[in-house]
């Protein structure tokens, strides 16, 4: 078919998605997942304009929206119906140090019996289109087993070679970390950086990812002291201003990082200031995920 009008129509249908994407989040995930310490082109070069200022515009906007009682708060499309967040009995807005103290009152880690797995259920809503994903992890090393056998083996090899880490923790390791905030801070700041170096914003953004990954897959075995310490370290990272914001009318809050020129990234806090989800983007284009971890036989 030499007449390509049909092909032109297909290209035009979503041509608005053709503009270059920043891909900051994808790049960091790839760098973290591959263990690469450098890239052919410095990520900072392309990230720098986008990360020039880490701001809390989202805080102002969300609080303003809630104050106006509008239906346009970014979480609202996903909060209704089956995507409801767990209710919070805590004050609607509190300073960061209140959240850090609140996290100490959370539930103790579940005791893991032999043969049990961590079941992580992730309820996703991509701009209103919902789906649920379930993953199983071995508690010792947080080995994802619901994936290709080759990748399972690769994780086991890494865990056996390097020992426990934030990526591959054990229940005992997590319990020990809670009492060593300095070490925790060092680990969270250990972002894969290009040879030219990392900006504070890149490191902080990497830490945000690390903390959210841990909450999504290992919250059930995480001691409250560690949850609190993670919040303390995260909110104290240089170059980042983290703010609390109320995102719905039952008082759920978020910690947000708004990256200039990129999407807004928010961690959603549930009861006891536990991290129960993440929200990226806003308005009509957003990605909301809510996490639940349990132990299963």
């Amino acid at each position, binding site marked *: *078919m030499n007449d390509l009008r049909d092909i032109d*129509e297909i290209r035009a249908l979503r041509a608005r998605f053709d503009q270059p*994407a920043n891909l900051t989040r994808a790049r960091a995930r*790839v760098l973290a997942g591959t263990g690469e310490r450098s890239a052919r082109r410095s990520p900072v070069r392309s990230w720098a304009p986008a990360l020039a200022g880490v701001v809390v515009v989202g805080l102002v906007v969300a609080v303003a929206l809630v104050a106006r009682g509008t239906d346009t708060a970014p979480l609202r499309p996903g909060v209704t119906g089956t995507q409801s967040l767990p209710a919070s009995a805590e004050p609607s807005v509190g300073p960061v140090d209140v959240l850090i103290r609140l996290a100490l009152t959370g539930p103790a880690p579940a005791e893991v019996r032999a043969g049990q797995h961590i079941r992580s259920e992730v309820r996703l809503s991509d701009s209103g289109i919902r789906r649920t994903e379930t993953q199983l992890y071995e508690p010792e090393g947080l080995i994802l087993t619901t994936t290709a056998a080759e990748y399972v083996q690769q994780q086991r090899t890494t865990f056996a070679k390097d020992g426990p880490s934030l990526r591959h923790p054990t229940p005992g390791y997590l319990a020990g970390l809670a009492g060593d905030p300095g070490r925790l801070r060092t680990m969270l700041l250990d972002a894969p950086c290009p040879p030219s170096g990392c900006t504070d914003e890149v490191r902080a953004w990497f830490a945000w990812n690390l903390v959210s990954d841990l909450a999504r897959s290992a919250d059930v075995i995480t001691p409250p002291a560690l949850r609190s310490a993670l919040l303390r370290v995260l909110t104290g990272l240089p170059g980042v201003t983290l703010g609390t914001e109320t995102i719905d009318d039952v008082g759920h809050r978020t910690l947000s990082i708004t990256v200039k020129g990129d999407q807004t990234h928010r961690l959603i806090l549930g009861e006891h200031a536990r991290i129960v989800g993440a929200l990226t983007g806003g308005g009509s284009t957003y990605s909301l995920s809510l996490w639940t971890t349990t132990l299963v036989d």
Partner: protein
Amino acid sequence: MFDAYSERVHRYCAHRVGPVAAEDLVAEVFLVAHRHRDRIAGPGEPLAWLYGIATNLLRRHRRDEVRAYRALARVGVDPFGGATGVVDSHDSRSAERVDATRTGRRLAGALAALPRRQRDVLLLFAIAELSYAEIAVALDIPIGSVRSALSRARASVRAAIDLPSDPDASTDDGSTP
């Protein structure tokens, strides 16, 4: 590799499942590629291979993709953001805009109705701009299957948007577009 190809892979994924999910998919594509980097076939560019990984990962989103096309066809609003967006904003060309929107809606309906394989081939051809041979590599299917799947998919789409069947279809030799 990420710097060289991520934009193009993202564009392809965004056309299919929206830009938000596409960014996650791009990360997954390159993580999978990293794990299987020993499988890059030959000295050529790995783009077709990356598109193949992306297309495999997109299968997990097939229902979302089809649902979005159906919604777009039904109400003219794309769940992945914005209206059909075929023609620009409200100006003096309102008649053209309505017509274009209708075309976009019909097209979305046709894409939703296509069998998965045909949709994969068609969008690798149209959005990823791969040649027949590259699509064959990406999907690990014979080039003849690419040719027939593309021919059928385009016939369905052209019928849906009121374009005549192309008389040159029979001379199609499967060469690079």
